[in-house]
C-alpha cells in the first residue's frame, strides 16, 4: 500500500440485509489518493456492496467508512455495469446531467460537457441519442458523465462486463490513460482476472458467503502498461497467483 494518508478507509464494515443475508462481513480496506484498486471475486461476494456503501447508497450495518476530509465525502462518481443513460436525452445532455443537478448555467454545462466528451473520444456525437450508440460508446458516455464533476474517487461496478472482448480491451487501455492523465483514484469492481491484473496497482480478492475480503495482491508493473504486458510472463504469473487465491477463497 502506498505511504500517503488514505483518501478513504473502511473499518470492520459489515452489511446485513433485512432478510438476514450477510452481504459483507468485517471488511477493512484503505484507498490512497491516485490509486487504482480492483475488487475481484465471484458474484455474491460483496464487491458491489462495498461500492454502494462508499457511495452512500446504503448504510453499513456495522463498522465505518471514513474519508480523509469529511466535507468532500460526496465528491465521487459511480459508473454502473449498464451505461444507465437517459434514453430521451442527447449525449451532451446525458454527460452534463451532474452539473445540471448542481445548478450550473446551461452555457457552462455545454462547454464542460463538450470537453468531457472529447476526453472519452466521442467528439461529434454530442447530439446523438443513446439508441444510436454501440455498447462501447454508451459506456464512454457514462464515463464522460462520471468524470465531468472531477470526482476525487471513481467507483466503477463491472463497467465493461457486458462488452465484447475487443471493446473491453480498448476501453481498458483508454481508462488507464485517463487515470494517468487526470490523476483519478479508482475503485474498480470486476470478475475478470485479466482485467484486474492489467488495470490495477492492487487487486483485492473477495470470498463469498458471507462476502468478505480474502487477500490483497499488489501488481508491481510500471505504467503505462501497453498491449505486450497482457501476454508477458509477469502478467501470467499474477493471473495464476490470483486464480489460486480465488480457488482458496471459494473453498473456505
Amino acid at each position, binding site marked *: 500500500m502506498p505511504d500517503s494518508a488514505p483518501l478513504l478507509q473502511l473499518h470492520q464494515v459489515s452489511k446485513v440485509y433485512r432478510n438476514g443475508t450477510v452481504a459483507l462481513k468485517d471488511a477493512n480496506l484503505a484507498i490512497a489518493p491516485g490509486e487504482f484498486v480492483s475488487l475481484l471475486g465471484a458474484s455474491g461476494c460483496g464487491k458491489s456492496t462495498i461500492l454502494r456503501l462508499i457511495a452512500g*447508497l446504503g448504510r453499513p450495518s456495522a463498522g465505518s467508512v471514513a474519508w480523509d476530509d469529511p466535507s468532500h465525502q*460526496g465528491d465521487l462518481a459511480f459508473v454502473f455495469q449498464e451505461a444507465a443513460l*437517459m434514453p430521451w436525452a442527447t449525449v451532451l445532455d446525458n454527460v452534463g446531467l451532474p452539473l*445540471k443537478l448542481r445548478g450550473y448555467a446551461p452555457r457552462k454545462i455545454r462547454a464542460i460537457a463538450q470537453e468531457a466528451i472529447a476526453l472519452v473520444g466521442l467528439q461529434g456525437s454530442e447530439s446523438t441519442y443513446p*439508441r444510436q450508440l454501440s455498447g462501447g460508446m454508451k459506456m464512454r458516455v457514462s464515463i464522460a458523465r462520471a468524470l465531468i464533476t472531477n470526482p476525487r474517487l471513481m467507483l466503477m461496478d463491472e463497467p465493461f462486463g457486458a462488452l465484447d472482448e475487443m471493446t473491453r480491451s480498448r476501453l481498458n487501455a483508454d481508462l488507464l490513460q485517463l487515470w494517468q492523465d487526470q490523476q483519478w483514484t479508482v475503485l474498480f469492481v470486476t470478475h475478470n482476472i485479466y482485467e484486474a491484473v492489467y488495470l490495477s496497482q492492487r487487486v483485492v480478492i473477495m470470498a463469498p458467503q458471507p462476502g468478505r475480503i480474502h487477500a490483497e495482491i499488489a501488481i508491481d508493473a510500471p505504467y503505462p502498461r501497453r498491449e505486450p504486458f497482457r501476454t508477458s510472463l509477469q502478467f501470467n504469473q499474477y493471473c495464476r497467483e490470483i486464480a489460486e487465491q480465488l480457488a482458496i477463497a471459494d473453498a473456505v
Partner: protein
Amino acid sequence: MADLKTLRRFSRFTGWLSPEVLAPLIVGFLILTAWELLVRITGLPPFLLPGPLLVIQTLISEWGSLWPALLITLKITGIAFLFAASSGLLIAVLFVQSRWIERSFFPYAVILQTTPIVAIAPLIIMWLRNNTFAALVVCAWIVAFFPIISNTTLGLHSVDHHLKNLFQLYGASRWQTLLYLRLPSALPYFLGGLKISGGLSLIGAVVAEFVAGTGGAASGIAYQILMSSYNLQIPRMFAALFLTTLSGVVIFIGLTFLSEALLKHWHDSVVHHEN
C-alpha cells in the same frame, strides 16, 4: 436539392399507398359493395337497413344540421379530454409523492372508473341542470381520466434503478428528480394513456348525450342519432353514426402521430430496428 425534396414527397406518397394502408381500404370497399348489393337485391326498406350510397346522400343533404351537432360533441370531447389529461397527470404525480397517498386514493379512482357512466349520468345532469354542456363534459371526463392516472402512475414508478441511484448520488432534489427523471420516464406511458383516453372521451360524451337526450336536453351528434331513430330516419341515423365513428378514428390517428413525434428519438415502440 429540389429533386431530393420531390423524391421524399413521392416516397411519402407511396407510403400512404403502402400495403398496410391499401389492405384495409380494399376490405372496406368490398364490404360496402356487398352491403349495397345486399340492400338492392333483397329490396330491404331503408328504415331497416339503408345502403351505403343512401347514407352518403343523406350525409350530404343533412350536413347543415349534422355538422353543427358534431362540432358540439367534439367540443365536449375535447374539453373533457384536456381535463382528463391534465387532472390525470396531476393526480398521478401526487400519487407517486407518497405510497400512502396512492394507497388511500387509488381505490376511489377505480370506483369512479367502474361505476357505469349510464347510471350516474342522469344524476350529474340533474345536479348541473342549468348547464347541460358542463354536465356532459363532466360525464366524459369521468370515463376518460382513469387510463391516464393508472398509466402515468405506472410510468412514474418505472424509473431505471441505476438512474435513480445516480440522481441520489448527485444530491438531486425531489423536484429535480420529478422533472428530469420521473416525468420523462413516464412520457411513453402517459402517451399510451392519452391514446386510450381520447377514444373514451368521445364515448363518454356520446353516452352522456344519449342520457341527456332521453331527458329532453338537446346537444350534439349523439342527440341527433337518438332523434333520428325516434323519427325512424334510419339513413340519417347511419350518417350521424358514421360521423361519430370517423371522429373517433381521427382522434386516435392524431394522438398516434403526437406520440410518435414526441418519442421518435428514443423509445422502442417507435424506433425501427433493422434486424
